[in-house]
Structure formats: structure tokens, C-alpha cells
């Protein structure tokens, strides 16, 4: 890349560098806000891990495409038994890991036994709990037996949490990930960047890019400058407040798409006064959703009235369940015994959408008499206080897992919602494989949580990518976390 002999020649060097970039347009530098703590997607929950390695370094049996549909991955085909309990996968032949070891059914078995093991540190272990056993039929055939039908099973296999790892290298994946993907890991300069290069021995179609560098730039202003200066070629999710810099600039393209992130006003249903439905309804009436969307996402978020992604075929528009109506909110509060409102705290994790939404909500709640004290926390503190100890009144958080409405059936989950009817419905939904039936059940659930105002339903996060105008093949939507490099290429 840029090779300079002296600082005095910077200008010339820059011209050379620019022309060099034009000639060898097979490299990409991507700016991302968060640096992953490690690089093993099966041993950590951080989204930042998937951004770097998902489908690039690691692959699963299936993979999720940019529309959220399940495609064959390392498994070229599969069959499902009629009762939905047995899945048989036919694996691709001639696949090797980056360290040269070959991939076969034993690796699949190892991967899933590792996920399900007692001391497993997989973040989504619960998703794979229905797996009763994994049987190696022959080196290229593997059979999964489930303890109950699971409508999401094939999708879940395509997640970053279920990528296939080798027993030889699994231990070191945190620092030196070894997978089967189209790119292999080259180096990780902590605090600065991760470098991937094309895997020459890749089993599938070769990607257009030969090298990809992920640069970690946490500060929006700095990332803006880096994009403008051409120090990075794009970013998958750029802060919406500064998008205007790139809109209308012919050198850049701004990709606005959907994500699976339902942003909610997390409410502690187990605690006074939020255990009172009227209080929750009052809060729902007090929320001016459009103002929050405008203020916190600069209009890029999509309003939701329940915990479900709007782009999903099962989605039901319930945004008018409790329309913005401060008078109704005051009346409900008075009815619940809080004519003068009440005081509550709101713990906010260190992400811009939460901090901004929190401020706006506090201002809106003040209109109806609810005095909110904002408590800003770092991630570790937030996880411990809210998720683990449930020591909170209110919070703002985006749930980015796809199809995660099942969390409402868990009375031990942090918002403490305990509804037996809903739990039964969810049970039924899990056991159903028929699409029409599933849609009906899912919509029933959506309606119940919306009417119960379990949480305040704010908006679906948008994916707002900024890329060099000459790049193509980036995912516009984000049905699953990751920046998939497979189809990205430079065009003139």
C-alpha cells in the first residue's frame, strides 16, 4: 500500500497511493466502531465478533443471507423427518480449515458438543438446548436429533454462535481464529485493526476481495474524517446524526436498511409501580414515538408497537395500541393511584441510541408527572445491574437477536413478565413447524405483549451503512450480525 520514503514527499506519495488503489482494487478497509474483545463467536456474545468473522472466517452448516433466508452453508443439503425431530445434513466435500486440517462430520459433532457441554461459555447455549444428540453417519453425513420440534432450528444453525470449529484449533480461536471461510485471519493489532486475507484453498466460490482490514474507530467524528479522507472505504453502521455529511456526496453511497434490533423501554414488571398495568399503559401513552425516532435515530428508525421486526412476514402493526396521549396517561396514572406521578430511575448502557432515547423519554415523562433520573452506566455495570441482578426501574436497550419474542415467556428474564397464557402460546409456537400456524401464534403473542405494555416499544434500529460509491455487494439489511465480505467488490 502506501510506501513513503520521506515526509517531504507526502504529496507525491499520496498521488501514487491513490493510483495504486485504483489499480489493485481488491482490498478493502472497513471502519467499525467497536473492537471485539476476542474473535471466537462461539465463546462470547459481542456483536463486534460477528462483524469481523461471521461468514468471513467462520461458517456454519447453514448460512443466513441478506434477506434473512436460510441458505446451504457447509451442509450442501439436508432432510428433515416428518415429526421435525431428525435433521440429516450432507456436508460439502473437500473443505479444509485454514490451518490445513480437513473438515468432516466429526468437527460438526465436536462443535455442538462443545456448545452443549456443562462448562460451555457459548452465549446462546439456550437456543441449541433442543438438540438431543449429534450422530456422525459417515464423514460427510451428520444427523441431529431434537428433543422437541424447533421452527427456528435451521436459522439458528446459521448463526455465528454455531459456526463449525475444529478440535485442533478451537482453544485458540479467541486470539487466532481458524475457520473454513473465504478469508483467513492474518493479524490483530489490538486497539487498532484486524487483517483478513483471501483463503486460497476456499471450497466455494472465491470472493472478489483479496484482503480486508477492519479498523476500530469508536469516535463518530473521527470515523467521519477517516471516511472523508479515504482512510477507510466504508462502514456497515454509521451514526445517523452525521449521515448528512455523506448523503448527496457522489463519492459515497449511504445504504439504509433494516436490522433485527427492537429498541424498547425496558421496564421492571416485577417492581412497583410498574407491576400495575395502568401505570405501564400510562407510560405507553406518554411516549411520543415519532419524536424519539427523530431525536435518537434522526428519523432512521421504524416505529414498532410490539417486540417484533417490522420487515418480518409475521409482523403485526400495533403502533396504535396506545397512541401518544398525555392526557390519557395522566388519567391512567391517577386511576392507578399516582395523580402526581412518581419518580423512577433509568439505567442507560453506553450506546448513543439509548442515551438519547433516555433523555427524550425523561423529558416526555416529565410532561405527565413521571420524574426520571438518568443513570449512565458502562456495559459491565449494565449487564450486572439490569440483566443479572434486575436492579433497575427502566432502561433503554435494543434486542438484536432475530425472532426473539420467546424472551417474554421467561419469567426470570430481566423485565420480570410472568404470563402463563403467553408462556403456553410460546410453547405451542416452538413446537409448530407449519408456517401459517406459526404466523397466527406469533401474532397472538405480539398482540398480548403490546396490550400488556410489558415494555415501551420504541423503534426498530436501522442499519445505516456508508460506503465508497465504487463498492458493491454490501448487505443493505442486517438480518443477522456481521459484515459479510463474500459479495463485496470494487467496480469502476
Amino acid at each position, binding site marked *: 500500500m502506501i510506501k513513503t520514503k520521506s515526509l517531504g514527499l507526502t504529496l507525491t506519495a499520496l498521488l501514487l497511493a491513490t493510483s495504486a488503489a485504483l489499480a489493485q482494487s481488491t482490498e478493502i478497509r472497513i471502519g467499525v466502531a467497536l473492537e471485539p474483545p476476542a474473535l471466537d463467536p462461539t465463546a462470547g456474545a459481542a456483536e463486534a465478533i460477528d462483524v469481523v468473522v461471521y461468514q468471513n472466517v467462520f461458517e456454519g452448516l447453514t448460512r443466513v443471507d441478506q434477506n434473512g433466508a436460510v441458505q446451504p452453508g457447509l451442509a450442501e443439503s439436508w432432510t428433515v423427518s416428518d415429526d421435525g425431530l431428525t435433521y440429516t445434513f450432507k456436508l460439502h466435500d473437500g473443505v479444509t480449515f485454514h490451518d490445513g486440517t480437513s473438515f468432516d462430520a466429526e468437527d460438526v459433532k465436536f462443535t455442538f458438543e462443545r456448545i452443549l457441554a456443562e462448562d460451555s461459555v457459548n452465549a446462546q447455549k439456550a437456543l441449541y438446548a433442543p438438540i438431543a444428540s449429534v450422530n456422525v453417519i459417515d464423514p460427510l453425513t451428520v444427523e441431529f436429533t431434537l428433543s422437541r420440534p424447533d421452527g427456528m432450528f435451521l436459522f439458528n444453525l446459521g448463526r455465528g454462535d454455531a459456526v463449525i470449529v475444529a478440535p485442533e484449533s478451537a482453544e485458540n480461536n479467541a486470539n487466532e481464529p481458524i475457520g473454513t471461510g473465504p478469508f483467513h485471519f492474518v493479524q490483530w493489532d489490538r486497539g487498532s485493526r484486524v487483517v483478513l486475507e483471501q483463503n486460497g484453498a476456499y471450497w466455494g466460490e472465491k470472493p472478489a476481495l483479496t484482503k480486508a482490514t477492519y479498523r476500530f474507530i469508536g469516535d463518530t467524528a473521527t470515523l467521519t474524517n477517516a471516511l472523508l479522507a479515504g482512510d477507510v472505504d466504508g462502514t456497515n453502521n454509521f451514526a445517523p446524526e*452525521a449521515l448528512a455529511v455523506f448523503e448527496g456526496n457522489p463519492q459515497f453511497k449511504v445504504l439504509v436498511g433494516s436490522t433485527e434490533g427492537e429498541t424498547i423501554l425496558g421496564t421492571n414488571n416485577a417492581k412497583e409501580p410498574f407491576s400495575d398495568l395502568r401505570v405501564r399503559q400510562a407510560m405507553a401513552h406518554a411516549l411520543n414515538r415519532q419524536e424519539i425516532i427523530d431525536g435518537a435515530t434522526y428519523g432512521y428508525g421504524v416505529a414498532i408497537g410490539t417486540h417484533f421486526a417490522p420487515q418480518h412476514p409475521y409482523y403485526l402493526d400495533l403502533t396504535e395500541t396506545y397512541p401518544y396521549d398525555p392526557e390519557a396517561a395522566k388519567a391512567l396514572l391517577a386511576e392507578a393511584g399516582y395523580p402526581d406521578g412518581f419518580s423512577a430511575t433509568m439505567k442507560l448502557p453506553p450506546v448513543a441510541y439509548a442515551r438519547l432515547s433516555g433523555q427524550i423519554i425523561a423529558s416526555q415523562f416529565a410532561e405527565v408527572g413521571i420524574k426520571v433520573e438518568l443513570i449512565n452506566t458502562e456495559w459491565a455495570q449494565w449487564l450486572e445491574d439490569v440483566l443479572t441482578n434486575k436492579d433497575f426501574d427502566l432502561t433503554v436497550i435494543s434486542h438484536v437477536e432475530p425472532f426473539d419474542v420467546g424472551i417474554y415467556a421467561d419469567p426470570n428474564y430481566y423485565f420480570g413478565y410472568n404470563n402463563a397464557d403467553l408462556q403456553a402460546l410460546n410453547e405451542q409456537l416452538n413446537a409448530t413447524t407449519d408456517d401459517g400456524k406459526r404466523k397466527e401464534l406469533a401474532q397472538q403473542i405480539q398482540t398480548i405483549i403490546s396490550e400488556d405494555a410489558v415494555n415501551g416499544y420504541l423503534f426498530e434500529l436501522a442499519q445505516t451503512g456508508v460506503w465508497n460509491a465504487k463498492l458493491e455487494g454490501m448487505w443493505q439489511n442486517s438480518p443477522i450480525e456481521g459484515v459479510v465480505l463474500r459479495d463485496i467488490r470494487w467496480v469502476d
Partner: protein
Amino acid sequence: MNWRLIRNHPSLLIGLVATALFALLGLVSLWWTPFPIEQIVVARRFQGPGPVHWLGTDNLGRDMFSLVMSGTLTSFWVGAAAVVIGIGVGVPLGLAAAAWGGAVEWLVIRISDVTFAFPSVVIAILITTLMGPSAANAIIAIGIFNIPVFARVARGGALAIATQDYVSAARLAGLGNVAISVRHLLPNIMSLIIVQGTIQLSLGILAEAGLSYIGLGTQPPATSLGLMLRDAQSVFLIHPWLSIVPGLAIVLIVIALNIAGDGLRDAMDPRLKREGINHGAG
């Protein structure tokens, strides 16, 4: 300090008046701002300066002038409280070192070396982790860093004073170290401390801005000039005004404080007072 002193040092007057104006602006915000700063009206955001909003509005439609008033107060408050911590702990330490000497002095020097060597930002991060981010956290982190500064100034000043005969005279009169420190040393190093105080105050305001920038300082819905600057930084290219207002406010306050500090030093330092005829007197 008297009026003649101020008249003879016009820069001191400018510095003090400018500082006082900003301080007043901040203090008034306790009772009155043109608009409440917690009030968010997204619909009126990013307005330029105008008759309703004199300095325009920010990304959440809050009145910039109100924010600057409140932010100035926070910045001053953080800086001043940190100075108070620095003086409250540092000056007694420095006086003790000078008055007792020996092991006490050794210990004070070590303590001040250690606090000096501790990067203040690391202290701030640690305190944030212990207590959560807040303006109070910034006060403590900056205040801790102020302690050795004042300890050094107090010790240096006191050592110079301690050689004076009137200190020996007080000792002859049977006064102990504490009494001498309070009666003689402290009043005579007060001017040094005041001058250093203005400098540390301006440094504190800058440090608060820095801490707010990395998210360790003042937290919304409260605001400080540093926080305003940080919030505006990412939209600098689109709405530069939002950055320029708090940035300029910080620069002006710090300059005002520094000018006042310089003026005080010139006015109080007898060495400089003599300047001009210091080759004259035989």
C-alpha cells in the same frame, strides 16, 4: 488587593471582569435560563441563532444559550470544587512538610510524587468504575491531581517564608508548628495559592472537557461545556455552530482565568513589582 492594584494592571481587570461575567452567567442559570435545559423538543432542533433562541438550538431542540449558561456553571463548579479539594488537602500537606520537615516532609514529597505520576485519566476511569460516571467523579479525579500541585506551591512558599526572622520570632514566642503555620505561613502564601488557584481552575475546566469527551465527566441531562463540545463533535461538519459555541466559551473562560492569574501574579509578586529599578537601589 485593592483598587489601585487593579488600576495599575489593566489585564488583571480584564481577566477578572471576564471571569466574573462568565461566573455570573453560570450562577444565574441556577434560578433562570431562557428555556429549561431538560426540555426536549425535537421538532425545533438545529435552529440557527435567532430572536427566540439567541444562540440557536442543539440536536435535541434545547436552547443553546440556556445550555451554555448551565454548562458554564458545571464547568466552573467542577473546576472550582477540584481546586477546593486541592487546596484543602494540598496546602495543609505542604505546610506540614515545611513546618515539621524530616520524615513528614519526606512522606509529603512521596505522596505528591505518586499522585503526580498517576495519570489523572486513569484515576478518573477507576473512580468512574467505582462510582459511575458523573461530574462528582470528574471533580475527584481532577481534585486529586490538584493536591500535589498545591502541596508543592504551599511547601515552596512556606519554606521561603520559614527562613524569615518573624517566623523565628514566633517560635521564640513559644508558638508551635501549627500556630506558626496558621498565623504566619498561611497568610503569607495566600497570594501564591490564589494565583495557583486561578491556573488550576482553568486547567480543571479543560480537564473536565477532556473527561467528558471520553464519557467520564458530566452526564446528561446535566450539561457542561465539555459535554456540549463532545456532543457537537460528531456533527461538526453539518452544524459547526454547535461546536463553536461551547468551544469558544471554554477558550474564553480559560483565557480570562489565565489573564486574571497572570495579573494577580504580577500584582502580588514583589520581585516583579521591583522590576525596573532592580538595578538601581545601591
